[in-house]
């Protein structure tokens, strides 16, 4: 079979409706749609402040067909802990609780609550859709912003000077039962991971890269392509970690040069070839470390 037909592997559930207020080509809107396809209607979404606070629609609207609780920026994991507890008390143990947070609400302001919940093994799925900056407030840097990127608070004269925080490693260090990275550009891999998360117990963490046309400065229609380039260039590898120790690459598409990803985005336009080469080197370095982790995991299993 030449074309990889994936439609049979995508659940039919449609819990996102049209008319939502995401920008055209928004990776975050698609991420929600895909995740809810697998989780299904028996799901409650907890939504700390993020782009999705707008995408979900203003009062009296909702763009989701599942219950949705808007909450304060840093409280996603904490509110979800309460929702979970209340559901358990009411005997609704099979209802999924999904925290849907941006990178700011996860890497930055919400990290404490997330860490607390993860350590307590709170039984919910935490999805961070990562567009690598505070996009809703107009593209300010977060600790998920990659090195070298332009944002309105990291102008080109002084672009983001530190590496993106390794949130997956942070979550793995909490020894959560399941943590994974995923991309809207690889929907089957994403859906599989949501399913594994759904079937698991305790705090389950998904880090979904959500390409952002206005924030990353690329054409709307290239949104899926951008996610694909991120994975192919190994800038955003697709990983899974079980119990914080068993690391594996869920899929590794044919490799492309990092330049191809970087040079497709306006937020990196100011970078020199040498700077792009240094990004490439750090991507390579991290890839090798991850490969070692994977090999060590495989060795320890066998």
């Amino acid at each position, binding site marked *: *079979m*030449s*074309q*990889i*037909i*994936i*439609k049979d592997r*995508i659940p039919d559930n*449609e819990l*996102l*409706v*049209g*008319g*939502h*207020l*995401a*920008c*055209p*080509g*928004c*990776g975050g*809107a*698609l991420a929600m*749609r*895909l995740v809810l396809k697998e989780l299904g209607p028996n799901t409650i979404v907890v939504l700390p402040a993020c782009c999705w606070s707008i995408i*979900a*629609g203003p*009062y*009296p*609207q*909702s*763009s989701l*067909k599942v219950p*949705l609780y*808007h909450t304060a920026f840093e409280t996603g994991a904490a509110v979800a802990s309460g929702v979970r507890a209340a559901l358990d008390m009411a005997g609704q143990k099979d209802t999924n609780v999904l925290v849907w947070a941006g990178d700011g609400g996860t890497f930055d302001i919400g990290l404490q609550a997330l860490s607390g919940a993860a350590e307590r093994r709170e039984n919910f799925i935490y999805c961070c859709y990562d567009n690598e900056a505070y996009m809703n407030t107009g593209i300010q840097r977060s600790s998920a912003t990659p090195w070298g990127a332009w944002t309105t608070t990291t102008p080109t004269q002084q672009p983001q000077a530190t590496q993106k925080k390794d949130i997956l490693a942070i979550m793995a260090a909490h020894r959560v039962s399941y943590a994974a990275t995923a991309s*809207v*550009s690889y*929907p089957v891999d994403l859906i599989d991971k949501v399913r594994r998360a759904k079937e698991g117990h305790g705090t389950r963490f998904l880090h979904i890269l959500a390409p952002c*046309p206005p924030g990353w400065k690329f*054409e*709307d*229609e*290239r*949104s*899926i*392509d951008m996610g*694909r380039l991120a994975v192919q260039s190994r800038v955003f590898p697709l990983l899974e970690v079980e119990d914080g120790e068993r690391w594996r690459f869920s899929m590794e598409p044919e490799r492309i040069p990092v330049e191809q990803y970087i040079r497709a985005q306006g937020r990196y336009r100011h970078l020199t070839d040498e700077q792009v080469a240094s990004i490439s080197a750090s991507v390579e370095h991290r890839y090798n470390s991850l490969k070692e982790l994977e090999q060590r995991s495989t060795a320890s299993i066998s």
Partner: protein
Amino acid sequence: MSESFNAIPRHTPPISVSSTSTEVNRTGSWKYIQPAYHDRVAPCSAGCPTGVDIQGYMTLLREKRTAAAAELLLQENPMPAISGRVCNHPCESSCNRCEFDGSVAIHGVERMLGDRILEGRLPGSCRIRHAEHVAIVGSGPAGLACAYHLVRMGYHVEIYEQEQLPGGMLRIGIPEYRLPRAVLDRQIEFYQAMGIVFHTGCRAGEDVSWEHLATHYAAVFIASGAHVSRLLSLEGDQAGRLLLSGLDFLHRVNSGERPDLGRRVLVIGGGNTAMDCARTALRLGSEVTVVYRRTREEMPAIAEEIEDARREGVNFRFLLAPESIATLDSGLRLSCRKLKLGELDAQGRRRPLPTAEPPLELEAETVITAIGEDSELHMITADLDDVRRAVNTWSCERFARIFLGGDVAGDERTVASALGAGKRAAIGIDRHLRSHNGEHFPDELLEEMSIGRTGALSMARWMHSDPVRRVSPLNDVVRPEEINTASFAHEERHEDHHAEFSLSFAESNTGLSEAEALAEAMRCFQCGVCNECELCQIFCGENAITHDSVNGRFVIDLDHCKGCGVCTAECPRGAILMERLAGQD
């Protein structure tokens, strides 16, 4: 005091709680371009001089609808078993899969389907639906194609062939190891069964007069081919007596003769006839060297033919121009000027230029020339260019009843283009005869009938009998950059099988197995035609695309589509186009 002071809010809930969905927002109004589904033209079909709906029959094959696939193939191509063997398949060089992992082996699929057809029952006689009779001069691929299409349209057709057996160049020019006579004979049987009448051994202008043809038939199609070998004049040769004409040589061998050529044979030329001569001479037991004035890259022969010749042991001497020939005791000595390549010529090939180096001398018992063939034009009474233009443009008031096509018309000398020319003539004749019966065919129709606007004519379009469902068809060709290869897996192309190496006249290329042909059909990108893979729907962040599985199409909720273009970008096959909205610049 204003009533607005201390009013009691009765219509707002105490908290922000939803009571409606975002669907009330017409976010579709944000867009200035919008996607639309179209069925477009695959480059293979556009590149096929015969105008075969390759993408269409590949799709049917994938769906395991083999009979329907064969029927679709037969709608445009009268002899897939033959063209699958001998065509130079420009479809494959046009294939959008080339860059990805090699083109689809279209010829192999075609041959497999063609063989299945010939293995089947003979077709019934076609029903006559028109009163007019049509005469065709020449039973080569162009004449056969024209006859085939006309018969299928319901005309009575008679073919005049000067040889004793029909087939034209297929029979006398193409060696048996490439086209087994059994295949050709079976194909002719099919045509006879359909109702085509053959007058063999009957040369137009001699055995039957042009006056007879012009008065007894409503239309005449002249497809008499090009049977005159071009002469090579060499110093030391009297009227070419020391040289053997390639076409004559092939004709003799293809008629069953097995002449003794001696130990060493030189073949002059780089085209398909030269390759056929070289490989045939090899089969007669000689050592063969091809002498060509440019290099392998410039050779006009089909690449596979060159490769087969090389594999079988034919030697090649490039950049040589024969200048003189002399008779020796031991045979013949050909003296050749050494050449080098210069600037590009009008055809885009590098021009060979003479060098000052001393000439190279080659010895052989036989020297065969295969440097091209010409048609016998003396039979044509009208001005050739006018007739040819008449066929190509439909503007044929002057020569309405006489049509010309194939090698005789100076078309590209391939079976595929001959088949296309025959079809074009059949459509031209049908149009002409029906115009006389009061039907009107505007000139714009020509572009509409042409695959991808400039390609071969489509019989399906002419007959309004396309068995493939089309969604808003657009007659433009899918460009390679419109293919999103992300959802395709690399899969090596299946190559033809070859029987164990032997220099016999039996066919050595055994083609593809049915399974391999099906696998090749699966490799088809299905350029420009939706296969309901649903990627557009899966990747729509607006959930604005729904799949209507009953009608097998997608419906875009334009009230909510923001025009991001992701569906278009992600469609693997260019079947969705972004269109500017009316009133937008």
